[in-house]
């Protein structure tokens, strides 16, 4: 989690000041630092200025749409969580279907308490997701590093140059060190619908060994479990 000591900043965008004020009063009581904007123009300015932790965005604004704020945020590569507010049920399908990735929506009229609960839930979810992303981006076992984000395997810091398929195979082993996989279980884990066969799998394993093992004949990482399948060497205790 990031900077737990400071107040969470929330940007509320609604062209009805009386709605913004009421939401603001509730969220301030809950310990949020609230910034209000009544137009798209103000919303974009405030978004840049305060870098909010979460946003409440009304879809219909006099000079645009709350979705534009989300669009700008996403175009800058920011994943700021957002809850959309809308008085039109017919907009809901559009919001949910959007690739922009709003985290939730609330239809008007709403209970402010319900909105506060949604804000908390979305923040909790996004913080958990951040934690997972941070811990899972690279898996290290001895000198072997499987970098999930970069889709790269390094051995003693050097790029092992694995192919996309080899990466997928190795990732499963790296995520489950010490666990023996039969060929069938491995194919299941790869969700491969008939494009990879057991013999192909053996070839991928052999190629991986050439790339990551010092001596592919006596593998240190990708070990054979005789008569069963393969496993990744367990992590050092």
């Amino acid at each position, binding site marked *: 989690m990031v900077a737990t000591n400071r107040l969470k900043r929330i940007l509320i965008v609604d062209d009805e000041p009386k709605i913004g004020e*009421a939401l603001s009063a509730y969220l301030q009581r809950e310990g949020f630092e609230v910034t209000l904007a009544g137009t798209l123009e103000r919303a974009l300015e405030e978004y840049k200025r305060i870098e909010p932790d979460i946003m409440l965005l009304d879809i219909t604004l006099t000079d645009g749409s709350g979705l534009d704020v989300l669009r700008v945020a996403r175009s800058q590569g920011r994943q700021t969580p957002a809850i959309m507010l809308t008085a039109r049920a017919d907009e809901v399908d559009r919001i949910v279907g959007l690739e922009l990735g709003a985290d939730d929506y609330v239809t008007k009229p709403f209970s402010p308490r319900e909105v506060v609960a949604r804000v908390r839930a979305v923040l909790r979810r996004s913080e958990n997701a951040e934690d997972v992303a941070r811990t899972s981006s690279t898996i290290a076992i001895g000198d072997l590093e499987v970098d999930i984000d970069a889709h790269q395997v390094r051995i003693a810091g050097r790029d092992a140059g694995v192919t996309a398929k080899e990466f997928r195979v190795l990732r499963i082993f790296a995520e489950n060190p010490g666990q023996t996989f039969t060929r069938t279980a491995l194919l299941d884990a790869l969700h491969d619908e008939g494009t990879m066969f057991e013999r192909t799998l053996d070839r991928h394993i052999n190629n991986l060994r050439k790339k990551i093992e010092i001596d592919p004949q006596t593998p240190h990482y990708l070990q054979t479990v005789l008569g069963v399948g393969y496993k990744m060497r367990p992590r050092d205790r």
Partner: protein
Amino acid sequence: MNPQEIAALRHDIGNALAIAQANLEGIIDGVLDPTPERLASIRESLAAAGARLNDLR
């Protein structure tokens, strides 16, 4: 009434009721003061919602 008109109606009534509900709940929950202005705006919002509802006839 065409779909655009219905959407506009839904938007206006939803917003008006949202103002009334959010402010009334705020007063009940003790996060907003029941100032005469606030009470008046709740009444106005309910009246506006009612007026728009009558457009459906």
